[in-house]
């Protein structure tokens, strides 16, 4: 199989896949002698750039996907008639942040940071598949521990969890409030 053909096969996979395409999936497709997806993506993106397309291949959630460039957002919204951004409520966002930074974390700890009951919010995040149960704590009552999912990475445009913005140091915070 020629390199050119492999490139086109990967392009077709990217076109058809509903989820970010990973190297692992590519390996399954090719069985043997599978191309390196990152190299192929680089070549394809170069090609798209020369040919001037409205889309390119993005690295996200440890995989690759074809996506439109942000400058076409308003036109696409016209078509899809999507109202404003799909956003989580503030309570959900705060809880999301705490789980993202402190995972694995139990409900009690989330609540002690937010100072309010978080049962409902955690449930919402669970049903949205943004967090998942990672196990149980060893402590009394063996409470459930929560962590983030791949969908979280996708929805927030991250590749790995380590890409979330650094928490501002407490010392910095206090000088800002003064």
């Amino acid at each position, binding site marked *: 199989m020629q390199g050119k053909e492999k490139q086109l096969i990967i392009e077709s996979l990217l076109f058809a896949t509903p989820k970010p395409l990973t190297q692992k999936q590519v390996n399954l497709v090719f069985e043997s002698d599978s191309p390196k997806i990152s190299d192929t993506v680089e070549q394809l993106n170069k090609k798209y750039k020369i040919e001037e397309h409205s889309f390119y291949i993005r690295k996200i959630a440890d995989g690759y996907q074809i996506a439109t460039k942000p400058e076409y957002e308003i036109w*696409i919204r016209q078509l899809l008639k999507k109202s404003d951004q799909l956003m989580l409520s503030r309570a959900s966002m705060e809880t999301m942040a705490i789980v993202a930074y402190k995972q694995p974390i139990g409900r009690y700890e989330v609540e002690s940071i937010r100072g309010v009951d978080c049962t409902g919010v955690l449930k919402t995040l669970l049903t949205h598949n943004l967090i998942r149960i990672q196990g149980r704590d060893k402590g009394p009552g063996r409470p459930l521990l929560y962590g983030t999912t791949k969908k979280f990475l996708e929805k927030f445009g991250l590749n790995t969890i380590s890409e979330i913005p650094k928490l501002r140091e407490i010392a910095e915070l206090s000088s800002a409030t003064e």
Partner: protein
Amino acid sequence: MYKVSLESFEGPLDLLLYFIRRDKINIYDIPIAKITKDYVKALDMMKEFNVTVVGEFIVMAATLMRIKAKMLLPSHRNDENSNVEDPRTLLVQQLLEYQQFKEAAQHLTELAKNQNRYFPRKNAMDFPEAHADLEFYLKDVSLFEMARCFKIAMDNMPVISTYELRREQINLEEQKAKILGCFDCDGVLRFSALMSRFNHKLEIIVSFLAILELIQQGTITVAQNEIFGEIEFHYLENLA
């Protein structure tokens, strides 16, 4: 008359941080007496809205008062431990940690917003699902909002000036059936439309309870399209 001057707060810590920001207070030197006063005032305001002030807010009020009391007492110096801890320390730590995550939440919001600008190929395929998603988010109506609408409904009730004593027995179950009967064929009912049907306090109160029960049973859900906007009820069985 009442005035809405409270933003919506996510909890007692959020409310305290609001005071600290508003009055440009040094977080390491919080004037406990003043902030306790402001805090209790805010709770009173919530009560005026007929919101049952949730336990967490009351716990914080108690905490503030305990700190205040501790600060008034002369600190007895321990010879071994001459460093007497400021009674505010624990609270300050809690506030700082909460603020840290509040900021992180804002960063995440930005990330998600940015991500919303890219449309991956899969979008065309799961568009209906995206729609369902949207509805789900709209259902996120806070209790505070519900209570506010309830208060408006109460305030808009005509005052009966004639001398008349009457007490109608209103049954919760009957009221539930009545409310379900008010839904239009699409299974949608506007809060204001529902409230205009009732003409005395007890009926509104029982209706409110009935609504809460219906929500709990999963028969209906609440949705609100915009902040302070109209609240809508959706009859779930209709969707099936």
